[in-house]
């Protein structure tokens, strides 16, 4: 059961701002101001307008000052999920997070100072410590007042979905009663430059599943969910927002950065998630696609969705919310799971706002306008570099 959810994207901080934005199909991209992009081919991203103040927590002022942007994004989302769940400080609470870069901006600052004479160490030890994802996880624990085992999954762009899926498995196998899980990612120069070097960034506009799509747009943000067993939630009369019911994780060995052209692993991940959830594609009411907007990803995912959905495809609503907030890499799977949760809870479906000419290979309708709908099950896909493929299925509660 999901009893708390927190989300930060370029649309805003918190459930209300994000639900409002996704429900209306808003987009939130702008010029990158966090680092120098003057030499890059593309200069736009979905940068978060981060509040100046962190939410009130147990972290000391000094600890707060040492947190980098990614850690702050995580703290905002974690605090919202924690508060919404109404959890109290506790021991033995597992924390499962997904990220690809951790505190990469601190790692970059470390390097820039390290190569400059006089090669001084001033400020460097703190950068070494706070660059590492485990420090960000420990800070979140300290802030919210809980302790427990930390698992950090770095499966590239599937990390956030893997984190929530793994947390769900801990509950399912009786290894925990509650788990805090999610994903986070701050924009960084290295990763931005990396995607630009691959010419994966759109020089025009991110248009997932559009026939004229020409690349992705990077974003940043975080999402965290408070998961607990039904027994635990019922015992404390917690408000249940929704439920994770299925998880599939499969490896695509085709290529380091390109999916199998027919989306074999994507199909297998969706199929495994359905088997876990004991539902068929006919019962899925909405798919939040990985839908990056790159020619290769979207054609492979379309092939996989066509095959997986079969006859259901022609009426299955699919959209990619990366059209609104970009690709959040290690946070994407968690953010998109929370978008599904909001949609199930509030009875709407988010659109692919930038779609103009649907890719003809898609046998399914691609939502290009916001839609009110009360669906039972939503599936969300996340596929990453290295072939990490993950699918989650969420169910509406009540």
């Amino acid at each position, binding site marked *: 059961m999901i009893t708390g959810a927190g989300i930060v994207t370029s649309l805003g901080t918190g459930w209300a701002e994000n639900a409002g934005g996704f429900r209306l199909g808003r987009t939130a991209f702008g010029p990158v101001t966090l680092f120098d992009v003057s030499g890059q081919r593309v200069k736009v991203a979905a940068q978060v307008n981060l509040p100046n103040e962190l939410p009130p927590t147990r972290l000391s002022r000094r600890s707060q000052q040492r947190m980098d942007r990614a850690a702050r994004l995580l703290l905002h989302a974690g605090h919202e999920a924690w508060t919404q769940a109404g959890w109290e400080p506790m021991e033995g609470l597992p924390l499962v997070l997904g990220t690809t870069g951790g505190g990469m901006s601190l790692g970059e600052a470390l390097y820039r100072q390290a190569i400059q*004479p006089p090669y001084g160490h001033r400020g460097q030890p703190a950068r070494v410590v706070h660059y590492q994802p485990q420090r960000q996880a420990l800070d979140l624990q300290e802030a919210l007042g809980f302790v427990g085992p930390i698992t950090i999954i770095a499966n590239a762009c599937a990390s956030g979905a893997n984190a929530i899926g793994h947390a769900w498995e801990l509950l399912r196998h009786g290894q925990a009663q509650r788990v805090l899980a999610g994903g986070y990612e701050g924009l960084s120069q290295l990763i931005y430059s990396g995607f630009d070097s691959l010419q994966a960034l759109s020089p025009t506009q991110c248009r997932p599943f559009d026939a004229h799509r020409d690349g992705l747009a990077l974003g940043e943000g975080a999402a965290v969910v408070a998961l607990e067993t039904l027994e635990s939630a019922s015992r404390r009369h917690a408000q249940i927002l929704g439920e994770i019911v299925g998880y599939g994780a499969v490896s695509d060995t085709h290529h380091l950065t390109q999916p199998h052209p027919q989306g074999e692993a994507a199909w297998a991940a969706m199929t495994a998630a359905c088997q876990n959830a004991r539902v068929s594609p006919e019962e899925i009411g909405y798919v939040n696609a990985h839908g990056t907007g790159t020619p290769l990803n979207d054609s492979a995912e379309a092939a996989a969705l066509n095959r997986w959905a079969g006859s259901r495809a022609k009426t299955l609503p699919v959209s990619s919310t990366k059209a609104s907030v970009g690709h959040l890499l290690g946070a994407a799977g968690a953010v998109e799971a929370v978008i599904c949760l909001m949609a199930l809870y509030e009875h709407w479906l988010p659109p692919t706002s930038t779609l103009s000419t649907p890719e003809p290979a898609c046998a399914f309708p691609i939502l290009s306008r916001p839609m009110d709908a009360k669906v039972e099950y939503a599936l969300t896909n996340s596929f990453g570099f290295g072939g990490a493929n993950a699918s989650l299925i969420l169910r509406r509660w009540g």
Partner: protein
Amino acid sequence: MGMSRIIVKGAGAVSPAGWGAAALTNALERGTPLPIEGLAGPAPGRPLRVRRVPVANPKPAFTAHPRLRRTSPIGQFAVAAALEAIGPEPGRLTENGARLGIVYCSMAGCVNFSRRFYDETLKNPSTASPVIFPETVFNSPASHLGALLGTQAIDYTLVGDPGTFLQGVALAAGWLDSGRVDNCLVIGAEELDWLVANAAEMFHSESIVGEGAGALLLCGSANGCGIELQAVTSSYPFSSKLQRAAAAIKARDEARPDVQNTLLCDSTQAVARLDSDEIAAWSDWPGPRISPKRICGESFMAAAAWQCVAAVQAVASGRFASAQVSVVGCNQQAIAARFGKQNSDEGRGTRDEGSARVD
């Protein structure tokens, strides 16, 4: 919940002692710290002190694989250790639909290529190499290994401090226990870079950074014989309420090792300030102990993997009935694990919440 036994089918290592678990074992038995080399850093005339993996001669055959031609050392170390753990017939692990899972663990990750790519970005982003960037991603070694072995089963790349390797072992045990996979590789790997050595030196000038990888191949077995994963304790994260020293004691207390004929493989590295918490936690240990980091250097996740490989080798040699592994990590957690010779008449065990205990 009921749990099948978790058997260690194989172990492999690449270390400054050489390519292969035997080289590591021999170096640990000799007990003499390996020679220190100088590694050029950005500051002229101030080489950093490191222990490098020797150049492989001959070059491993797997480097001819299209996915492995241009991997950085960490990928090659990881693959070499994994292939050694698997043995001569890797294809058998994925025959007839058998599922081979991968848990790959690292702390610093693919730092050679990350540093190189970022340097190119700072100089001129328009010429930063698209060939290098994908190799900077934490999970690229696991991806290459999966492609080489042809496995499509679940794989996770875990990051964290060295204790994460034991969490990875527990995760693999969980996957085997739940039937998620039929076999599972757990790999810990790191590569040397001046950036890492420089960072380590900022905290402890005596610390000698090393590199390499270690791997275990685990399988579930209801009634098999061999080297068994007997227990992994809970992870004890460091916090303001549980300082590192106290976490080390908690892990030691939960481990409850049988001191009879047991070898302790600890994570000390001959750096007094770093070692003191672990030394205090295990101060009453009466038996023999080995410390791979003292011989091969501080190699973070790879070193934790070497501890497990050394533990398995010690039990396999028949000299010890069991081996206790203690990892008191640098900035996240304390955790312990135990390997032992399996008796075929032992009963099935139960798993503690959050751990893979079988006792």
